């Protein structure tokens, strides 16, 4: 059979968000993949510039429906850094507890989606049933199932009562038992292992080079976790392991996520044991002094990065959001190579993509009024390589140097 192209998306049952993958097939084997994003650009960054910091925080929380707490925390960490606010320890702990609960619900959600993508709907139904336990807990603690709205500049909006903390520990016991069952399923169910192992292989070197983050990177043996490497919130006070795996495939990514679930339970237990008494918020100024800050956060999908530039008013000068999916997307094309059509959904799903969170737009306004011209992609590439060479950076060497450094 000759090569032919098959469109996966922008509308496709395997994808819950609009993005387009054009896959060139030879029979059932994938030759190459072409990716297109930008179907769900919402103009959030620009909208943040039009709103006060507290309004922007609520907007940023809506970047992602699943890791909403990640984005809002990441954003206000930057704002608080500029304002020089030290938030109370109890608020730090509460933010951390919500962050870990969010990771639990995100990973359980992923497990279900992965099950669905390989036609194992029973796993979907089971893991989503258990996810309800976390969702209910989050609703009890914050008042909402998603978009918790617990953060505020200078702390958190709600305290967690003693009864809720005790209930949290019980929830952890239930979930731990459930997760052990999933670990058992993942290590024994033969069709599951057959469908996952060896699929979407990406070598350790490629993972580093393409800059993958989060569980996707850790499943290829990249020992990187912002919670440990650059501690924020209460992570420096608690002990946890960074789960890595050397399978380098979808099976490895499953094991990493399930392993991280087990870590989450132990982390929440430690947090509940160590949580200090005290106020949960400090008074924050309405106007944030001029300055800029860069904030990193280990979201369930990987490193989330926010950049905030303040200009002394109550509105931000510039907000830049880089969702973890953007960092992981480059590696998907490599993972696809030499796999089969049947594996496309699970390979895409294995990075736990969140395309709507990723969509950003860059537009360059030529204020000098220079003549506009159209330039071909190839010419632009040559031009940029040339431009960097003049600055003393040679990208051709850079790849080789990077490989050498990685070997060393």
């Amino acid at each position, binding site marked *: 059979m000759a090569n*032919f192209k*098959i*469109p996966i998306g922008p509308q*496709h*049952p*395997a994808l819950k968000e609009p993005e387009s993958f054009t896959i060139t097939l030879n029979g*059932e084997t994938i030759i190459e993949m072409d990716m297109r994003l930008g179907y769900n650009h919402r103009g959030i960054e620009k909208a943040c510039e039009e709103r006060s910091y507290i309004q922007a925080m609520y907007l940023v929380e809506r970047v992602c429906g699943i890791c909403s707490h990640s984005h809002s925390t990441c954003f206000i960490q930057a704002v608080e850094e500029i304002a020089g606010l030290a938030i109370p320890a109890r608020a730090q702990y509460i933010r951390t507890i919500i962050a870990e609960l969010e990771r639990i619900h995100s990973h359980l959600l992923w497990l279900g989606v992965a*099950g*669905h*993508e*390989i*036609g*194992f*709907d*029973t*796993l979907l*139904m*089971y893991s989503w*049933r258990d996810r309800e336990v976390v969702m209910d807990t989050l609703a009890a603690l914050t008042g909402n199932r998603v978009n918790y709205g617990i953060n505020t500049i200078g702390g958190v909006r709600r305290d967690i009562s003693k009864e809720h903390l005790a209930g949290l520990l019980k929830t952890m016991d239930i979930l731990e038992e459930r997760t052990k069952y999933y670990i058992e399923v993942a290590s024994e*169910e033969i*069709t*599951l292992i*057959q*469908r996952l192992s060896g699929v979407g292989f990406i070598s350790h070197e490629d993972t580093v080079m393409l800059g993958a983050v989060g569980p996707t990177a850790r499943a290829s043996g990249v020992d990187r976790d912002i919670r440990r490497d650059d501690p924020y919130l209460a992570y420096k006070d608690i002990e946890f392991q960074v789960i890595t795996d050397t399978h380098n495939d979808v099976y490895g990514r499953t094991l990493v996520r399930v392993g991280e679930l087990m870590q989450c339970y132990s982390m929440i237990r430690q947090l509940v044991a160590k949580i200090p008494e005290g106020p949960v918020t400090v008074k924050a100024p309405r106007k944030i002094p001029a300055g800029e800050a860069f904030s990193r956060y280990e979201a369930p999908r990987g490193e989330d990065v926010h950049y905030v530039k303040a200009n002394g008013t109550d509105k931000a000068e510039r907000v830049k959001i880089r969702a973890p999916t953007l960092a992981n997307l480059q590696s998907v094309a490599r993972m696809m190579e030499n796999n*089969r*059509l*049947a*594996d*496309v*959904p699970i390979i895409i799903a294995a990075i736990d993509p969140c395309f709507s969170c990723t969509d950003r737009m860059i537009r360059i306004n030529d204020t000098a009024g220079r003549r506009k011209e159209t330039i071909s992609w190839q010419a632009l590439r040559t031009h940029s390589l040339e431009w960097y060479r003049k600055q003393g950076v040679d990208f051709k060497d850079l790849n080789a140097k990077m490989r050498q450094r990685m070997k060393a």
Partner: protein
Amino acid sequence: MAWSLFNLLIFPGFLFLFVFGLAMEFVDRKLYARLQNRIGPPWFQPFADFVKLAAKEDIIPEEADSVMFRLMPAFALASVVTAFFYIPLWSTQSLFSFNGDLIVVIYLLTIPTLTFFLAGWHSTSLFSMIGATRTLTQLFAYEVPLFMAILAPALLAGTWSLSEMTVFYDQHPAYAAFNIIGLIVSLIALQGKLERVPFDIPEAETEIVGGTFTEYSGRFLAMFRIAIDIEAVVGASLIAAVFLPFGLGLGAAWGFVFYLVKVLAVIALLALLRTVLARLRIEQMVIFCWRIVAPAALFQLLINLILSGVLRP
């Protein structure tokens, strides 16, 4: 003449099969749901789905071969209903029978799969063409083991007629125990024939949207759906007649009860199978069928060859 028409159209013909097929679809969906810790649909859901689909607009793609597109659902439905008449259900006598009807039934049960292929191919959509190719690839994998598994009991009975086979096994019920491998093989093959998890590769929705049926809608899709439901019942009846020939000589009422129990058991087993397994890849499916299922069926054939020499001199 009137009686034959009644048999063909009402009982045990089309109308009975229609109701029975929908009922079994309900049993399957409810069991699947309960096993997954869900509530599941109400009893009339399959019928409601059918009515809803039948009331919808039929859309035929401009690129598609309109004649083939319209004909294929009718072919699928006709062939499964025809196959049903040659299978002994609650007595040792089927509605029609002749020597060699076993082969005819197996072939009639192959026709729906071929119509799925042709329907997908003539839809000319990318997804349905990939689905069609997968349907055919899968057919070659499970069809041969199914043939061998069903022919093995016939070999032991020394006849190519389903009715005579059931007479033979009714006289020697213990002999049915020899065919246990064949029973397992044909259950697996039936799951493949019905294109259900783990063999729902041709219509894997997360990969190729609706597979073969991507372009189908309205009445034509409803007809395909009902054909698949009836195929499940006919397949289960065939397995019941060949491998579980018990309670056939107890009169019509008890026979009917036994028949229902047998079909329900087969449907329940198939539902269990699709609950606990993930979808295989097409090449994994083919390898599984040729490396494990086909040799098992061959082994069954060998056992029955030797046994027929020993037991039926």
